[in-house]
């Protein structure tokens, strides 16, 4: 049988997932998983080399085909998806060693890969939804692998992402209605009228997957409840890749929108809000993983902002940022996992001075943290600069400012994290720690290396991975020739650097105020008058879209239940029977068993009959 190569990235993980279930020994499973992810990675690499391929099989009819298409951009995404998978799997061999449910874990991981690969390759919206939605289940299951309370978080993620997926579904269907086609690469519309609604709905699906506000609430919770590898795997890397991938495709190919069109403004607003609020939340976190998770949300804002600008620079920056973010955020989560593995906790209060005992982890953390903060010459700097530029070009300075504010607090919070965990005084609350073994370290090292590489050599990823996204947009490409030589010395870059300085200042102030305790560095900001109340409300989950939504749903349900459903039942249970009883009672009282009564009815009946007959005959003439 001749299986098209495009099916490999989908079928291979499936085979590995299923076969894994039959393996007995834990060691074997680990090897099997590494082998599997390597194989898929290789496969993705080969496809990356091919660049162009497509496969159409009949499926459901009605224009719903099993349609896979490979082109430059999704080949890149595919490659990166599998790179991250490989790294995470490698890392998991140690990190997940203690888990009793390792088999399940790899099963879900491979299924996730399958779905992710499928949705990247799919060129039919229904097929895309099929794979895309599948991720929901694997995410749910993966979070369920965490601690005892993880099921609540899992449900949260399922409901929030389910909401996004249903919006996406509706958007897709609308799009189908408008354009008459489901083939992603064949649709090309102006984002106006119904099409705009469709775009917004699909956009919700995309940014929801990526974890933008207000669909982000599960991520911080999952950071606590779910295994850290899952965090590194899904919210940090794969979901960002996929979400932004979809956003890119719909913004660039499926729909067109001009700079500063309403759609663009909406996107930028969402992006800006996400950046600021998430980073504010990240700032005050006292748990390493939770802090990271808020950053995972915050950074999405940059990508959305970038793409939302509608300027070539912004879009490219957004996409590049997606890649960069996936790299460094995975690295950060992995390092937090490494810390957790060694020290048994990720609470900053308990940790301290780990740099000495865990130099590799500390180093990798530092590289990634600097990247995320946008420090030259790491990769984050490049992509962020592009986004700053892009947003500046739109003329809406407010968005640029928001991005800068994000940059300040990002750096501040990482200063706090790094200071309290790796640097500073050694903590006494934890036992002596040791550096972890190589499968844990190698992924982090690789990722850190990427951070540096892509920062210094930004032209390389841009050319290899990002620009293919813009194939078919020659006018954009023409504008982008300058991107690789972004100079350090322009006003915007200077302001960005200024931001970093401010952040450092803030941190210094905070530490001083906190009597040298680095984990309290964010307290001054936390305790600012109005902001403090906002924070309190946030801590009480007042802004939690999910919690409030659930409350609303419960209320709505109760209202409907007691105003519609129960009254209907009341009609059957009470109204009918009681009316019946009243009528019966009256009739029974009439039938009192008295002969005279009965006789009089009969005679009265006769009289009436005679009268009626008489009149009727008269009428008939």
């Amino acid at each position: 049988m001749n299986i098209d190569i495009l099916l490999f990235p989908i079928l291979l993980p499936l085979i590995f997932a299923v076969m894994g279930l039959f393996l007995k020994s834990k060691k074997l499973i680990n090897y099997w998983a590494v082998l599997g992810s390597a194989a898929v990675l290789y496969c993705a690499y080969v496809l990356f080399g091919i660049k162009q391929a497509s496969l159409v099989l009949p499926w459901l009819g009605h224009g719903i085909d099993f349609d896979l298409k490979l082109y430059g951009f999704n080949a890149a995404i595919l490659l990166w998806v599998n790179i991250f998978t490989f790294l995470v799997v490698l890392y998991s061999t140690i990190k997940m060693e203690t888990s009793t449910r390792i088999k399940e874990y790899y099963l879900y991981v491979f299924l996730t890969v399958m779905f992710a690969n499928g949705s990247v390759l799919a060129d039919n919206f229904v097929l895309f939804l099929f794979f895309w939605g599948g991720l929901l289940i694997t995410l749910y299951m993966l979070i369920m692998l965490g601690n005892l309370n993880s099921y609540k978080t899992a449900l949260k993620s399922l409901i929030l992402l389910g909401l996004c997926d249903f919006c996406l579904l509706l958007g897709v269907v609308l799009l189908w209605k408008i354009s008459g086609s489901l083939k992603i690469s064949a649709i090309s519309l102006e984002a106006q009228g119904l099409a705009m609604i469709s775009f917004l709905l699909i956009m919700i699906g995309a940014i929801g997957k990526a974890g933008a506000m207000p669909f982000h609430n599960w991520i911080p919770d999952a950071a606590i409840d779910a295994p850290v590898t899952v965090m590194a795997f899904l919210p940090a890397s794969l979901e960002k890749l996929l979400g932004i991938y979809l956003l890119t495709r719909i913004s660039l190919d499926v729909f067109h929108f001009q700079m500063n069109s309403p759609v663009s403004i909406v996107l930028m607003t969402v992006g800006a809000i996400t950046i600021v609020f998430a980073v504010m939340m990240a700032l005050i976190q006292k748990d390493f993983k939770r802090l990271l998770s808020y950053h995972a949300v915050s950074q999405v804002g940059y990508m959305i902002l970038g793409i939302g600008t509608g300027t070539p620079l912004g879009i490219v920056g957004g996409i590049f940022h997606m890649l960069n973010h996936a790299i460094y955020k995975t690295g950060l989560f992995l390092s937090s996992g490494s810390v957790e593995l060694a020290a048994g906790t990720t609470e900053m209060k308990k940790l301290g001075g780990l740099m000495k005992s865990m130099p590799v982890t500390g180093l990798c953390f530092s590289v990634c943290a600097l990247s995320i903060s946008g420090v030259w010459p790491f990769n984050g700097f490049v992509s962020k600069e592009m986004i700053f530029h892009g947003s500046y070009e739109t003329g809406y300075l407010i968005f640029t400012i928001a991005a800068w504010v994000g940059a300040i607090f990002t750096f501040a919070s990482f200063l706090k994290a790094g200071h309290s965990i790796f640097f500073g005084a050694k903590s006494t609350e934890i036992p002596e720690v040791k550096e972890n073994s190589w499968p844990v370290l190698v992924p982090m090292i690789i990722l850190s290396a990427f951070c540096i590489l892509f920062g210094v050599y930004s032209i390389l990823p841009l050319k290899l991975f990002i620009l293919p996204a813009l194939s078919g947009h020659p006018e954009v490409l023409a504008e982008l020739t300058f991107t690789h030589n972004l100079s350090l010395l322009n006003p915007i870059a200077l302001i960005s650097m200024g931001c970093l300085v401010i952040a450092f200042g803030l941190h210094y102030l905070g530490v001083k105020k906190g009597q040298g305790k680095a984990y309290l560095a964010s307290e001054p900001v936390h305790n600012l008058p109005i902001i403090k109340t906002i924070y309190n409300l946030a801590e009480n989950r007042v802004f939690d879209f999910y919690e409030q939504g659930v409350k609303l749903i419960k209320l709505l349900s109760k209202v409907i239940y007691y105003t519609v459903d129960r009254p209907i039942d009341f009609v059957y249970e009470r109204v009918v029977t009681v009316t019946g009883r009243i009528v019966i009672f009256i009739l029974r009282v009439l039938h009192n068993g008295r002969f005279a009564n009965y006789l009089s009815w009969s005679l009265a009946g006769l009289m009436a009959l005679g009268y009626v007959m008489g009149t009727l005959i008269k009428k008939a003439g």
Partner: protein
Amino acid sequence: MSISKITLLTIFIPIIGSLFIPLAGLISKRTRSVWAVLLAGTTALLPILLIPQAFSGTELIIRKALFPGFDFILVIDALSIFMSVVSSFIGLLIVIYSLGYIKDDANQNEYYLMVVMFIGSMMGIVYSANLVFLYLFWEISAICCWRLIGFYRGKQQVIKADKAFLVTFFGAALMLLGFIAIYNQTGTFDLTQMRGLAVSSTAVLLILLGMLSKSATVPLHTWLPDAGVAPTPVTAILHAAVLVKIGVYAFARIFCYTFQLPDFWLQTLPILAVVSSLVAAAAATVEHDMKRILAYSTVSQIGYIFLGFSMLNPLGVTGGLLFILMHGLSKAGLFLCAGVVEHNTHKRDIRELGGLIITMPITAITFLVCALSVIGIPPLGGFFSKFMVIAGTVHGGHYVAASLALFTALLTAFYLFRLFNAVFLGELKVSIVEKTPAMLFVIITLAVLSLLAGIFVSYPARFADVAALEILRYVK
């Protein structure tokens, strides 16, 4: 065997065979069980033989002259074959499940008699092309349900059984009046001769009431949650797999396949369906009884099927048909899982349950799979049906209905997981292990089928497509 013979056997083997179940029960329990499974098995097997006929895209009509206007007419086309394959198969599974579930209860003879006869009457409904015979089989199924709901004989059970019977009979009687109105207009009860006929709004209303009552759609739905007092296999058969599908099947057969709906109803039906869906979903969110939640969920899902059919476009109808299959599999699975829990713990209030995933992992996983399918999450079967219904709705131009339907889907996710969390997760309150392999076999089968139906969706979808084409032949 010729096709007409197979069809006749499909209908009459279970109906007549079921009458011998009490006799078999006189011999021994084993004989009776074997006989019942045999009957259900045969009934499940026979329609499968008809599948080639379905794909041929032609319809075959069998006529047995009886009395002018009352001829016994069977229609064998993709729609009827689709329905019969789905419902008889699920019926078989439920009979097998019952072997474990009710093995310690009294009145088993009656139970199997009624279940098998129910399956037979369903086959009768599916193939009948004469309105009177449709009604006839319709009421046979109602009688069976009545006995089955009151199976445990407690006062509450019997009252609820009566309620179910009365509400459905009320609807059905009005539907009969609607049929008669049509007869008055055309002089025949033969559906095959009336294709493309425009009918009056009043007749539609009357007939619709019957369908709504049988399919437990708002505002005639409350008997269904109340019917949860029945043994679980029965609720599964009633709520999920077969009974409530009768109404939607009749809708497809009568309003899509045969008549032309008046414009008023074309506009009103989607609203009705969505409202029903939403109200039931809300109720499911509030309820605490496991089976009531699932029953309301059924009501809610039936709304989708109505929505799909009421669009009268290929997407919607295909979606509706697929929905019947997918929902049948997964909702039956959910009920049967709930049944396993109830059978082992004797509790139905979700507040009294918890943490069962530890002691009953298989049940928990199958429940989860089925729940995901009901919600409509890929790669499970429920996704495709829901997608196509929504797509059909949007293509029909009912954007608001589509979005409300999706909101309902979200509610579905919410209450099903609320149920899942309360029963299977959290603190373990009752420590009981899974027993009865027959029951586990069935729920696993259903879960696996829900999954396979999603992965290999193209096969049922092609089937449904053929049926939808046939249905919509006379729709303008």
